Each structure stands twice: as C-alpha cells, then as structure tokens.
C-alpha cells in the first residue's frame, strides 16, 4: 500500500488575472440576497448532460443550487429478481448490461463471486487473460469518461471523438476475442470462454505500445487548458471523511486522497504479481477526478505491459468446472473487484440448487451518487453538469 503517487506537485495553476478571477468573483457573490425566490426545476431525464435517463430535482436560488435530489429507476428491470429465477451461468450475459461500457469487469466480478461460492480456481492463463481484458476495459472507460466530461464542459465532442477512436481499437480486440464489441459475455466460472486468437497478443501489445502517444496528446490538449482549469478546479469538492463515510469508491475516492484500491487491498486474481501504483489526489475536486483517470490509465498500461509479457500457456478453463448441472455448495459469499467506476461487488446466497437464492449487485455508480448533493450545493447549474460528469455513472448499473 505504500506505493502511491500524489498528483499535487504536477497540478498546473491558472495565472492570476485570467478566467479564474471571474470564477472567484462568482464564488464570493454566493452570499446574501436571501429574498430571491427559489426555483424548482427538473434536470433530466432527457437532459443531454445526464449520461442516460437520469433526473435531478434541483432547487435553485438564482443560479445556485440549494437542494438536489437524484431520481432514477427509469431503466429498472429488476436484474436481481431475474437472476434468482435462472441458473448461475444464465445470468452471465445479463451482467454485461449492468455497466455496458465495462462488460468484462462485470463478468469478472460475477465469476469471482461464484468461483468463491463453488470453490473453483481459474487457471493460470485465464487469470492473466482476465487481468488483460479488465485493464483494457479500464483504459477505454477512463478515456471515454474524460471525453464525456470535457464534452460537458463544452469541448463539443472533439476529445470525445479522440477517446472513441481509441475505444474502438480496444473494442476491436474484444470483438476478436468474444464475438461482441460491448456485450462480451466472455468469462466463465473457472476461466474464460475461449482462448486468445492467434496474433491477438501481438495486436494487444501494439495497442499498449501506441496508447501512451494518444494519452500524451490527450493530456497536452486538455490538462493545461485555461477554460478547463477554471471550470474544474475548486468545483465539487468531496472531503475525505465524507467520501469514506458515504462508501464512495474508485477514482472518485482516490481523488479525495484515500488510498483504497481493491486491487491492492484484496489482491484478487493475480494483482499481487504486478508492479503498479495507486494515484491519489488531495483536493477532491472535479479537476482531481479528471487527472486521476489520466494517471490510472498510465498505471493500467504498466499492468498490461507486464501481463502481456508474462502470459503463460495452458488451458483457459479449470477442467473441474462444469457448465451443465452446475450446483455450487450452499452458503453466502461477497466477491468484489475494482471496476473502472469503483468497487463492484456481487453478493450471492446459494442453497445448493442450480439457481442462486439471493443475487445482489453492489453497483459502484449508485453508491457514488449518494454524495452528489453534497458536492453540488452552492454551485451553479453549469457546475452540476460537470460534477455529475466527474462521478462517472452508467444508468444500466444504477437502475439494474
């Protein structure tokens, strides 16, 4: 846990007398004027900035937010109830639809929980493949999140298209591996569904070798941009104690300076074999949450580099694992992984039958939304948009 990197030293600051001074003026004008009428508006569910069918009941005093309640459930399909009515394996494709950006990590979290319930161990090669696809998923999720977030700030899609270009390269790899770009349904209990195709490793290595160039360009384009600094620094501050108490996880938690990464804490899979660091922020504002994603992508590239180098041969499925009449032993288990958005957990109660008695998804985006109101109070509507963007929600997962 001691290997960490702090991003304060590299944090660029705005020169005095630029856009930021306007920003500070706006902040000081927040007090006073208690006579003004409160205005209640409903942002969403079709607001372009809400990243899906998500609504916020906002009470405004002028342009300042005085109350904000997130409202969701528009995509609710009771995924948990559906899973209770089918076998363990049949739920695997449905986990793809939770966080539809990161189907690989969803698969992994579910497979991990069921494997612990059934006492299976994935093979060595499968463990490496899982790490590789999970870190690729992290790359594409973080790149796209930065794209979305800057889009919310008004970059009109250019960085988003750059990110999508890279994402498409990764999705091509996934498609070659699993047959599907996004709904991969790739992992199985005790391993992965199919082995890597010939030449896949070389393609992935090429991607990993080229990705830093994209990252450099991306970072140069964005992180010292005056408007971005003015919009994101000091906005939506999430204090460290509140972040811990509100069970915030993932990059959002680490941007507030809490060194907690499930990859380091639980060392699930084979993460203890890789050398990588946990980036930490210490302001906990939107800018830190943005930068954390850049730094995490660099760490993911390190892991990918090592995993692709050390990838062993051998089978990709535990030979003891059964596909048909799979009945794990009774008991309950909570398995969790560090998904790109935070801690993704699956809680299962098995009763010895082919179906789970209880199947629960602990979605990181839902729990991270708990602090949305605390971060938005006192800010303007335009800031609410980027604060929500920095939380990184996917409604497929929030609503389940």
């Amino acid at each position, binding site marked *: 846990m001691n290997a960490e990197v702090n991003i304060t030293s590299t944090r660029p600051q705005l020169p005095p007398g630029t856009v930021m001074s306007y920003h500070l003026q706006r902040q000081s004008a927040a007090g006073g004027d208690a006579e003004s009428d409160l205005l209640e508006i409903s942002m969403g569910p079709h607001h372009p900035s809400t990243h899906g069918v998500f609504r916020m009941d906002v009470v405004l005093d002028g342009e300042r937010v005085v109350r904000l309640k997130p409202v969701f*459930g528009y995509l609710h399909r009771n995924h948990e109830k559906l899973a209770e009515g089918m076998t363990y394996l049949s739920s695997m494709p449905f986990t793809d639809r939770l966080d539809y950006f990161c189907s690989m990590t969803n698969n992994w979290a579910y497979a991990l929980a069921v494997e612990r*319930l059934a006492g299976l161990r994935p093979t060595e090669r499968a463990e490496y493949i899982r790490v590789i696809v999970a870190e690729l998923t992290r790359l594409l999720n973080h790149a796209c999140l930065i794209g979305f977030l800057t889009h919310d700030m008004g970059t009109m899609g250019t960085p988003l298209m750059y990110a999508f270009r890279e994402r498409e390269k990764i999705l091509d790899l996934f498609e070659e591996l699993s047959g599907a770009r996004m709904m991969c349904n790739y992992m199985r209990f005790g391993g992965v569904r199919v082995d890597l195709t010939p030449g896949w490793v070389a393609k992935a290595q090429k991607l990993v070798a080229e990705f830093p160039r994209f990252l450099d360009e991306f970072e140069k384009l964005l992180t010292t941009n005056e408007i971005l600094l003015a919009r994101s620094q000091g906005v939506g501050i999430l204090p460290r104690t509140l972040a811990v108490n509100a*069970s915030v996880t993932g990059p959002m938690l680490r941007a507030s300076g809490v060194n907690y990464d499930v990859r380091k804490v639980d060392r699930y899979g084979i993460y203890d074999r890789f050398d990588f660091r946990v980036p930490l922020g210490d302001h906990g504002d939107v800018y830190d949450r943005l930068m954390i994603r850049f730094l995490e992508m660099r760490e993911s590239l390190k892991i990918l580099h090592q995993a692709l180098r050390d990838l062993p041969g051998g089978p990709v499925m535990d030979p003891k694992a059964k596909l048909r009449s799979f009945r794990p032993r009774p008991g309950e288990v909570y398995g*969790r992984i560090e998904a790109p958005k935070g801690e993704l957990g699956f809680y299962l109660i098995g009763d010895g039958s082919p179906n789970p008695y*209880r199947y629960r998804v602990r979605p990181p985006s839902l729990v991270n939304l708990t602090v949305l109101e605390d971060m938005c109070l006192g800010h303007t509507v335009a800031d609410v948009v980027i604060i929500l963007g920095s939380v990184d929600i996917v409604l497929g997962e929030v609503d389940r």
Partner: protein
Amino acid sequence: METVEQIKVRLEAAVPGLEVEVIPNPNSAEQPSLRMGLTHILAAARFLRDDPSLRFDYASNVTGVDWLDQTFQERQRQRVLVDGAEREVEITVQRIRPGYLEAIYHLYSMELGHGPLVIRQRTANRTDQCRLVSLTPIWRGAEFQEREIYDLYGVVFEGHPDLRRILMWEGFQDFPMRKDYVEPDDYEYEPTPHDLVLEKARLHYGHGGRS
C-alpha cells in the same frame, strides 16, 4: 482482523444489553456473520466504526433478503400408551419456522484495510412488523441501499433521513423482490398467442386463452 467470535465478545462488553449471535456460514471457506438485536444496534454499529482496532468505517454493501415461512419435519421420540403398555415410538412433527426479512451489511475498514465483517438484522415477521433500524446515521453509504431495500422488500428503516421509493415509481404498491411477489397481469391482446404469451393469456382470461 479479529475473528467474528472475538468481535462478538467485545461487542457484548462494550454495549451492555446488546443481543448478538454468530450465524454460521454454510460455505466453510467464507466468514460467518453477526446477527444483532434491534434495540442497541445503533450503539453497536457506532462501536464497530469508532473502535481503534476495528475501525469499520466503510459500509460497502447493504442488501436485503427475504426468507419465507419454512415448514420442516422433525422426528421426535415420544412415550405413548399402546395396548396398555407404555412404549417409545418415533413420530414426525411438522414445524413452521416463521419467515422474516433481513438486512445485511458488509463492513470494511478503509483505514486498516481489513474486512469484511457481515452484520445482519432481522424483522419480526414478513407482514406487519417489517421494521428495522437504519444505520445511515452511522454510515452515509447505506442511504441509497437502505432505500432500495425499502423499495424492493418493504422493510421500513427507522431513523432513515429520506425513506422513499428509489427504483420503482411513487405510488407503486407491491414489493417486487419478495419471494411471493406476483407479477401484474400485463397481458395485451395478441392474435396468435403462444408459449409464455399463451400462458399469460390463459391466466388473463381464465380459460383457453381466447377472449
């Protein structure tokens, strides 16, 4: 981390009057859990969060489970009079374990890096006494997840700051995650109903699937 049994002993010492028992996990590789009575659970949760060697400051997962009434048969030996002589015979007795709703909390420590500790609280029954104590005052992270349990299971959390439906809409009546939930009759007319639709049509019209 201390074992669950050690934590139980320390809890009993720290919170007098707390009802706490260890619930074994049938899966031997995983941790057992602690069931707590409702009267002092808030104090116990505060102890778990603030004790310097435990420091469970992070409530990761909060979830509900529905346990239906269970009937099970028990074999008993009884002395009965048979033809004037007392004999011991074996009889089977049907017993009903009343159902309950349960809220389960998975606690970790971000500060010390250990966990999980699983704590649970149970309602008295599934019908009219579905009340539990909200632990949101201790862990803010439970706020939305307790709301979700209220929404899908119908457990009322006392002390929750904002207990409303969260995934289903306001005005929805039932609790869909309960095991005995009956799906609403949402059959729409179809000229050639088949398979599942035919089954729905049959239930909808009450006879052969035709209007």
